[in-house]
């Protein structure tokens, strides 16, 4: 009995830490509508700064707490800097752009922290004055944990007072409901947003700094906490601070007791809970239906069949791809195979995003499922490559069938978050189910059949499968199915009122996109000969988003162009030190400078030069 009580207290103390991070994230989302991936990086930065400060100041109580507060303040200032330099420029862009930009910040911060603090795991000292244990029912409970347990409700109380008893809080709550109206009443939103970022980042930094005496400080803290914090924020209801508190308790205890029952499935459990909560309450426990902050003026241009010019360019490109192996070396052929795979992967995401208006933050799930599906056929069924490449889309489509059923019930950011959760379930299963997937060691030795062994032969196989997949999806975009999806994207109510079951169409689109991502994953695994859980992780999902954005969301050729540029770019810079920072900077620059993407940019120039029809003049 006493053991369970101790476990309960452990759950409470981790809930407090989680709440600090989730509370800031929820506050920032509620007011600015930015899904801030960099929030986990602020947390990690807080831990590193506090660790470094504790090393230099004398180990007194004052020194320790002074360091913690100073670290939180430094992080708050970094958060303000990020907000003013980057996010301020893109508040009016779709949520996806902001998310991708904040992921750029994640990459930048990873390398900045590596550069400043070094890459080794660090273990901080215990908190002076709180380094002992208290015996409760005979079980030793760290004093520091008791402090954390008290801190959660205290922060909740302070936040409640700030939001309900100060003018600042009233303005923040009003801005959460209707930003435009707040501005029309004479409130400077820009200033309001900056203060919200200050407070949110402060809380993230504080959460990180308080971890110094508890856990090891390492460079993986950012993505592991952000995934959990997203779960908490979504379960609680995005923008609701009390909701975040309840959800943090739920997840904290779930982790504490889940580890006793199902030690292999701790990460999965949290995401399963989130999926269940969202199906029962689509806006989280205490959340409210999304107010459409961007309702004004985002009219998407109709998608038109390719012009003669575009067709000729595509024809030339295809001819170029066919003759390429005769002209280029083996290295270029391998790289081109990669580009083809990622072009299909990006195109499958683009298919649901631009056509269906469904943003997936977790498209890597289906890439990973396809790859593992193919690998299983080779490893466990003794099957051939041909059979494995058939299993890949089936496995991915099966995953999309299940996850899609949940996801199409939601819309907007909630849907995106659920797709992220789905991807985390796939990733953590791959990571934790060692017997089946080999866990972090992956599955090795998955090579193509004899006839496709040469790099050139495999390149042609990839060209047929990936090129065929892209053309098939293009065909669907111009079919009645595609029109229905775009109708649903532009106006779900009108689409349903003419007798279309939109949810079924969206579900079907989700499965189609998953299936093609699965083909990409299957082709990928044979080109590399191995598969690791990373292929289903958050960075892989973001890769797909970046490729789509890079090419241009509203341009059909976008994902192909985006995948090509992204892959070549990545290949160039991944040989450099601090390539993450460079990639992050490029991502941010693209979002801020050329939000229409490369293909969109080229199209704009083609219109200006008179090669393409100008939509504005033609209507």
């Amino acid at each position, binding site marked *: 009995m006493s053991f369970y009580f101790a476990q309960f207290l452990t759950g409470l103390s981790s809930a407090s830490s989680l709440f600090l991070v989730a509370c800031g994230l929820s506050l920032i989302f509620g007011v600015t509508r930015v899904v801030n991936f960099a929030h986990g990086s602020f947390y990690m930065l807080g831990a590193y700064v506090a660790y470094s400060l504790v090393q230099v100041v004398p180990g007194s109580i004052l020194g320790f707490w002074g360091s913690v507060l100073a670290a939180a303040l430094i992080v708050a200032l970094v958060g303000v800097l990020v907000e003013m330099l980057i996010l301020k420029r893109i508040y009016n862009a779709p949520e996806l752009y902001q998310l991708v930009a904040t992921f750029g910040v994640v990459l930048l911060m990873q390398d900045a922290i590596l550069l400043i603090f070094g890459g080794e795991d660090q273990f901080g000292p215990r908190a002076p004055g709180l380094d002992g244990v208290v015996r409760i029912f005979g079980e030793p409970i760290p004093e520091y944990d008791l402090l954390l347990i008290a801190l959660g409700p205290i922060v909740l109380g302070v936040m409640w007072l700030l939001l309900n008893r100060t003018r600042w809080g*009233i303005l923040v*709550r*009003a801005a959460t409901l209707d930003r*435009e109206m707040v501005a029309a*009443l004479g409130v*400077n*939103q820009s200033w309001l947003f900056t203060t919200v970022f200050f407070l949110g980042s402060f809380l993230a930094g504080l959460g990180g700094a308080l971890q110094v005496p508890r856990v090891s400080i390492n460079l993986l803290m950012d993505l592991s906490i952000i995934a959990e914090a997203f779960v908490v924020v979504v379960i609680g209801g995005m923008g609701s601070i009390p909701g975040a508190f309840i959800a943090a308790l739920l997840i904290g205890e779930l982790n504490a007791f889940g580890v006793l029952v199902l030690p292999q499935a701790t990460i999965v459990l949290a995401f399963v809970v989130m999926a269940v909560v969202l199906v029962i309450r689509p806006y989280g426990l205490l959340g409210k239906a999304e107010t459409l902050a961007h309702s004004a003026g985002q009219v998407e241009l109709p998608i038109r069949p390719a012009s003669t010019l575009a067709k000729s360019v595509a024809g030339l490109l295809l001819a170029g791809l066919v003759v390429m192996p005769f002209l280029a070396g083996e290295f270029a052929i391998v790289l081109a195979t990669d580009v083809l795979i990622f072009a299909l992967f990006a195109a499958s995401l683009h298919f649901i995003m631009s056509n269906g208006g469904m943003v997936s933050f977790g498209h890597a799930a289906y890439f990973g499922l396809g790859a593992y599906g193919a690998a299983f056929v080779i490893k466990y069924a003794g099957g051939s490559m041909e059979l494995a490449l058939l299993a890949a889309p089936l496995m991915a489509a099966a995953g999309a069938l299940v996850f899609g059923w949940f996801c199409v019930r939601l819309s907007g950011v909630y849907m995106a978050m659920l797709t992220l959760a789905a991807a985390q379930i796939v990733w953590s299963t791959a990571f934790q189910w060692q017997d089946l997937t080999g866990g972090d060691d992956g599955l090795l030795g998955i090579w193509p059949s004899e006839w496709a062994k040469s790099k050139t032969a495999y390149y042609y196989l990839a060209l047929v499968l990936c090129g065929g997949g892209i053309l098939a999806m293009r065909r669907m975009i111009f079919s009645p199915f595609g029109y229905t999806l775009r109708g649903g994207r532009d106006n779900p109510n009108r689409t349903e009122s003419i007798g279309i079951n939109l949810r079924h169409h969206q579900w079907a689109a989700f499965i189609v996109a998953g299936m093609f991502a699965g083909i990409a994953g299957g082709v990928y695994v044979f080109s590399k000969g191995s598969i690791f859980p990373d292929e289903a992780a958050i960075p892989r999902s973001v890769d797909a988003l970046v490729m789509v954005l890079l090419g241009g969301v509203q341009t059909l050729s976008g994902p192909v162009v985006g995948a090509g540029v992204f892959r070549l770019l990545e290949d160039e810079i991944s040989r450099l030190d601090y390539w993450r920072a460079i990639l992050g900077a490029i991502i941010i620059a693209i979002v801020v400078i050329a939000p229409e993407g490369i293909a969109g940019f080229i199209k704009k120039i083609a219109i200006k030069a008179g090669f393409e029809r100008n939509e504005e003049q033609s209507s």
Partner: protein
Amino acid sequence: MAETMLELDKVNTFYGKAHILHDLSFKVAPGEVVALLGRNGAGKTTTMRTIMQLARPRAGSVQFEGADITRLATHKVAQAGIGYVPEERRIFGDLTVMENLEVGRQPVRDGLPAWTVEHLFELFPNLAERAGNRGKQMSGGEQQMLTIARTLMGNPKLLLLDEPSEGIAPVIVEQMAQTLLEIKAKGLTVLLSEQNLHFARIVADRAIIIEGGSAVFDSTFEDLESHPEIRDQYLSV
């Protein structure tokens, strides 16, 4: 030539590709109550939004008290002394009546009576009874009063009222007209858009008719009455 408080000069506003306001020009003098009349879709709301810079004009200018406010940030327009009451009311539903008023609060401007919560509760007695209620718990008429009170908390010199009588019970509309006359007596300048000609006549000094995004009539109500063909052409349904 009388003094001018607000002047729109050849304003052209677009929503995406749709050209809404075509060279719209008119003036409002201090202390005046002007009614913008016109059918649905004539451009009345867009005119209001353009003055607030919630919709940015592609050409033309908006002058307020002699200063160009075109392209100013919306909150700066409000701070300059223009109060906006939108058509859809846009109460902060989760905030209490008192909190809604707090969001609107701005410093007192010289030369004008300062509005306090007490004054506003005198003007709108229903609000006083519901001070602690949340915005979404109120009826349409009460919400309309709250949104006007909220805007008055900013002590505006010019009040923009977009269709204040829309969707409100007739008895409340009468009450609203009385309230507007009281507000006018305090020296506020008002520009209101209306479809209800009867209501507009009670409160306004002058009528401007907008059709297809341009001003097609700008004169007194007496003048409008003596030209029934204008009313038939632009206002009748």
